[in-house]
């Protein structure tokens, strides 16, 4: 876990701090960080994915001494970062199709081996749609072969780029364009959905982790660690989408933080199929704090509020807290 940093005002929580030694600050604090995803991209105001991508790729660039190639699935990240004639990427980057990022990355990694350049590392990245649904087959194949690829999924819990349709990562009760908040069972249905981190663990791959844009240090540590080992690795990053979730553009990090603090999004790591560590919840909060900031849950807060369904979500959160021992 994090090295014990003597009390430095905000040292363990903020991006940097003038009182901290340089090597104790995050990669993001560095004036010379790569800015792998640079300005001028067309992400919405307050986009969590744009932030998560820069966080992850900058950390990976630092960890690999800038020897990195990225493969991107079709989706928001790809579309807003490379509209001809502009690209925001400062690193070698390829976009092929929606469902094949993991396979293309396997190919790039194989090429590096064939060239005798295994110090050049490969990251595949995609949204939840491209990872949990259409890209699932290729993802499983990459895991199974233990190809030397780090796959990063940016999870904003729906197909955002095409207009907020439901994916297998959409949580229960959330409103999307294909699970509208109408009728006797508004929003997404309970009992559906995939937990891809746990599916990744079932493949027995060397490293699986979940991370959030609200905890930069944790995210960077996990990416850095992932780049220090070989084989198939998977990191699942929680990235709020203001437009799709109906939240304020300045609440992005706050919402990500609440998802973690409620227990709805547990932060943990696993090696070869076993959970080996988790990040403790700092101050537990009830799920309503998280839900009420997002219009996609607005149907739960009518007059009167739908306490029964909110309680079901609370149960999910409590279940995670128990399962991963998040309060310790």
């Amino acid at each position, binding site marked *: 876990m994090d090295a014990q940093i003597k009390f430095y005002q905000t040292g363990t929580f903020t991006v940097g701090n003038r009182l901290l030694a340089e090597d104790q600050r995050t990669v993001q604090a560095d004036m010379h960080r790569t800015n792998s995803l640079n300005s001028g991209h067309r992400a919405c105001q307050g986009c969590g994915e744009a932030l998560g991508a820069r966080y992850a790729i900058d950390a990976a660039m630092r960890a690999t001494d*800038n*020897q*990195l*190639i990225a*493969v*991107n699935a079709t989706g928001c990240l*790809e*579309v807003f*970062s*490379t*509209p*001809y*004639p502009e*690209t925001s*990427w*400062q*690193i*070698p*980057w*390829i*976009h*092929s*199709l929606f*469902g*094949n990022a993991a*396979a*293309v*990355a*396997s*190919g*790039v*990694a*194989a*090429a*590096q*081996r*064939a*060239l*005798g350049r295994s110090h*050049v590392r490969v990251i595949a990245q995609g949204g939840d749609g491209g990872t949990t649904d259409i890209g699932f*087959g*290729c993802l*499983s*194949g990459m895991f*199974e*072969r233990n*190809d030397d690829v780090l796959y990063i999924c940016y999870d904003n819990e729906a197909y955002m780029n095409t207009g907020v349709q439901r994916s297998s990562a959409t949580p229960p009760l959330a409103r999307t364009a294909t699970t509208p908040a109408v009728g006797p069972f508004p929003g997404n249905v309970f009992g559906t959905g995939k937990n891809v981190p746990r599916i990744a663990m079932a493949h027995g791959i060397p490293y699986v982790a979940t991370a959030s844009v609200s905890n930069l240090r944790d995210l960077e540590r996990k990416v850095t660690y992932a780049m220090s080992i070989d084989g198939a690795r998977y990191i699942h990053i929680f990235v709020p989408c203001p437009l799709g979730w109906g939240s304020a553009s300045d609440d992005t990090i706050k919402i990500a933080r609440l998802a973690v603090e409620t227990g709805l999004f547990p932060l943990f790591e696993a090696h070869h199929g076993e959970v080996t560590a988790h990040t403790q919840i700092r101050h537990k909060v009830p799920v309503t704090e998280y839900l009420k900031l997002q219009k996609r849950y607005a149907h739960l807060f009518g007059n009167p509020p739908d306490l029964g369904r909110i309680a079901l979500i609370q149960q999910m959160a409590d279940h995670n807290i128990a399962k991963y021992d998040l309060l310790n």
Partner: protein
Amino acid sequence: MLKQTEGSHAVAEAVALCRPQVICAYPITPQTHIVEGLGEMVKAGELADCEFINVESEFAAMSVAIGSSAAGVRTYTATSSQGLLFMAEAVYNAAGLGLPIVMTIGNRAIGAPINIWNDHSDSMSMRDAGWIQLFAETNQEALDLHIQAFRLAEELSCPVMVCMDGFILTHAYERVDIPTQEQVDAFLPRYQPRQLLDPADPVSFGALVGPEAFTEVRYLQHHKQLRAIGLIPQLAAAFSKQFGRNSGGLLRTYRTEDAETIVVALGSVNGTVQDVVDEMRERGVRIGSVSICSFRPFPLAALRAALEHAKRVVVLEKCLAVGLGGIVSDGVRKSLSGIALKGYTVIAGLGGRAITRASLTRLFEDAGRDELEQVTFLDLNADVVSFELERESKTRRTGPTAEAILRHIGTVAASIG
């Protein structure tokens, strides 16, 4: 070196000589023996600096190929039929990105109904994807075309598929001449990518292109294939010089100089056609044939030159444009634009049905008397067809057509007439 070997294995050896760096494949009949052969060579250490990837689907196979080709290494894969369709999105993607991947298609029919035997419907389904498509007539040509294909692909930055008839070529044991490594090295230089993913010189590959530039990108793709029309004969000539035999090129003519009837076909059936031509010539019939090797780019000018003096053209196709008729016929008709001669489309060999000399002889004689329909299905069992049509008109709940016909015939489909 002369060898008596299976067609697949000959291709495997040829591909190995081309020093591929990444090979990926998913099993599907009838290409499996090719990649199995290559896989064994890699595992035994006979192919140096080559990574062999067992992928989980054909879509993954082409995707892995896209990744490795974009990373600047010589990449190869193979598939057939359903597999080609499953990777369709990626096939278009590879051509759109301009990646010089070489892929073998072991031509096989596409279902439903599921069928493992040879016809050209698979390659034809991808004819407009932007890949160069070369058809081999013999096992020797099949192995030779692969060597030419890598050089062609890399010069143009365009992917190439080498098509060889499933089972007929892939599984046939024939005598072939396998070149030496030195010969291949002299013909095929090291791969120098036009674009590549390299941390030392970062680029973004695969941007979103809108209306303002898309047409130009497509035009440039088209232009590339038009350039191939000139390059393919050049490479064939260079190959001939280096290896001492003719292989490839845009097309080959056989006894067409004074022919009144010319038969046009792709692939291995040309062997049978040439045998029938020889026989009929002995009886004084002025008949010849053209074997098209490069189906994409389609050799309009060369074909026109070969056909323009004939009275009639019979296009013998192992594929069907359902609802229209012939596919190759369209290209032939286009090449003869403005020239008035009779053209006949013959659909033959679908799903692996044997094309016999006897059937072809009957067919060509009918053609010579202009007693052919516009579109003919060779050796169609008219009784079965009319029985089926009548049954369907009488009952709503007819059940699956294929099963009904099989029951009617009473034997397994691959019947020899």
